[in-house]
């Protein structure tokens, strides 16, 4: 009698659900899992497409020649004509590789100290009431689209900073590859400067995040031992936050390497290698954006631009993977942006535009 009370129909307990009512659960579970797996498929597809499209370039030119030869020459190219090495066009992407590395390096040298100082000011020194508004203002830099940075950099910054750049170039003329020469306006340096502004909000946000995790005890201990504010920052805050700040700087580097439109305009667009950082050049991302139109009808030319894209993809992948390690370690197993305390960074990642 008792068995009748607790089972229905096919001997199933009343506490169990019918197969039909369990169906949506299964659908949801495996449907969602399939969609999540799609992300991995997508990333694999990226790599396949890029490798596939760039094989032509690599097999004709050779990986070494493509990466390290300083001879990107396409001006002889006739519309729609077959483009082979020795036929009026050669593709050594070294000037662009250097352009990307140099501009990103300049961006880090200028941007990271300012970003970290901003983070220190906002977390340790600034009056509490000014903190929120100031943080919002710094974050707003990330909301400006990169094409607007390009417009501003090219139309406003390039002519206005020409004199300043010339002064710098003259002052630094004793250092080879850095100073000297005639400044044109757009240059590696200017591109680095614009990139520094663009990576500032993300580096600053992550630094802020990490500095906020420094235990109060450490700071109080330093102050109790008689340290001044700055000594407290130098001895208690910075050493603790260093891995996280490094990770933030690496994420900034990833942004700078992949940035396209702004750089394309302020670097000058010259595919020959400049003699100093105050001369015009080109970056990997920039050459794709500016030359894709004319390359479209020439298979080998187009393939070289895909090869540039592949190098860019691998570079940013590598930089980001390293950055994640640092940031995760700094967050003590918690991703920055992955915890209740960190929505700000995620918001910022959403705002910052790398191209």
């Amino acid at each position, binding site marked *: 009698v008792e068995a009748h009370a607790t089972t229905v129909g096919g001997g199933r307990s009343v506490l169990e659900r019918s197969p039909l009512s369990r169906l*949506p659960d299964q659908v949801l*579970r495996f449907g969602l899992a399939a969609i999540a797996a799609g*992300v991995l498929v997508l*990333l694999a597809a990226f790599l396949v497409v890029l490798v596939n499209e760039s094989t032509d370039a690599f097999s004709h030119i050779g990986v070494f020649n493509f990466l390290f030869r300083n001879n990107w020459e396409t001006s002889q190219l006739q519309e729609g004509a077959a483009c082979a090495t020795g036929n009026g066009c050669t593709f050594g992407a070294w000037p662009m590789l250097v352009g990307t590395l140099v501009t990103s390096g300049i961006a880090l040298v200028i941007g990271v100290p300012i970003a970290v100082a901003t983070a220190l*000011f906002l977390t340790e020194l600034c009056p509490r009431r000014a903190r929120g508004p100031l943080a919002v203002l710094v974050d*707003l830099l990330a909301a400006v689209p990169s094409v607007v940075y390009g417009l501003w950099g090219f139309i406003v910054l390039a002519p206005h900073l020409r004199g300043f750049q010339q002064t710098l170039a003259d002052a630094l003329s004793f250092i080879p590859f850095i100073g000297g020469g005639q400044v044109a306006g757009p240059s590696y340096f200017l591109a680095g400067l614009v990139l520094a502004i663009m990576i500032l909000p993300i580096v600053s946000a992550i630094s802020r995040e990490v500095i906020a995790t420094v235990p109060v005890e450490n700071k109080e201990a330093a102050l109790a031992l008689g340290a*001044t504010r700055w000594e407290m920052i130098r001895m208690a805050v910075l050493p603790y936050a260093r891995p996280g700040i490094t990770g933030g700087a690496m994420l900034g580097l990833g942004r700078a390497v992949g940035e396209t439109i702004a750089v394309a305009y302020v670097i000058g667009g010259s595919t020959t290698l400049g003699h100093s950082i105050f001369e015009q050049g080109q970056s990997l991302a920039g050459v794709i954006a500016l030359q894709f139109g004319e390359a479209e009808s020439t298979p080998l030319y187009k393939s070289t631009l895909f090869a540039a894209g592949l190098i860019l993809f691998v570079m940013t*992948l590598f*930089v980001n993977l390293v950055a994640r390690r640092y940031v995760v370690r700094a967050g003590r197993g918690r991703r920055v942006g992955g915890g*209740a305390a960190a929505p700000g960074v995620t918001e910022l990642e959403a705002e910052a535009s790398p191209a």
Partner: protein
Amino acid sequence: VTELPKISARRRRTDKIMRGLVALATAIALVPLVLIIYYLLHKGLSAWSSGFFTTDPNLSQCFPHIPGAPPPPPCNIGGIKSAILGTLEIVGLATVIAVPLGILVALWLTEYGKQSPFANIVRYFVDVMTGVPSIVFGLFIYTLLVVSHIGGDAVGWKGALALALLMTPIVVRSSEVVLLLVPSSLREAALALGAPRWRVVTRVILPTSLSGLITGALLAIARGAGETAPLLFTIGAAHVATADLGQPMNSLPTQIFSDLGQNTDQFVNRAWGAALTLVAMILILNLIARAIARRSRLA
């Protein structure tokens, strides 16, 4: 009470100088923002003439300036109507694709995958995807869809797909943060009352986290709206406004990009006007997102 030793003058001076430098660096960080906003308003507002928002860009009466030759007669280059419409349509379609997709992946991560190895791999690669240069998304869609001539050459919906690829990982990350904030006691209470998982998700978790999800989505939209590189090779270069996403389209960022490429006063002027329009749209999205985040039930 023993007296504490005085801090030496040198140490006090260092402290003052360093604190001053840190404050100065913060001030320097804000200079570009002020300058950009100033120039956008100064040059953008003067470009907002009467027909600016109601006419399409027009190139037919304009001749390029040949160096050495007398400058060509002034021509009416038109406004940015098609660019605004194009951006709205393309970003709209990208949103319809990316936001549900991103939220679904985030739901799987928080409700099913949790800390399993596979979930961690997915999380890792979502993180990696947020760092992929946006021009690579453009190249990817160009190869898959434009070269293969599926449904025309470079048309609006292909650009929307490229933007959706870029926005999805952003939505996943922000949604996951928000979904993790839903108290597990709420989930447990619903499950203890006998609700099946899918009802817990649709009736408890999603409604609770709704405002946070909207905030994340709006920020992703703001990010997508400002992107140029994924659209360069994927939407074609139309100047005529169209409501059909199956046609070549125009967009604000690509309009600014090509106007800047012309580099004559008239075109640069229009670029400023378009830039102000774009930044205004993005700022409004940001402000709405922040306002919703502040009112959120969570956090």
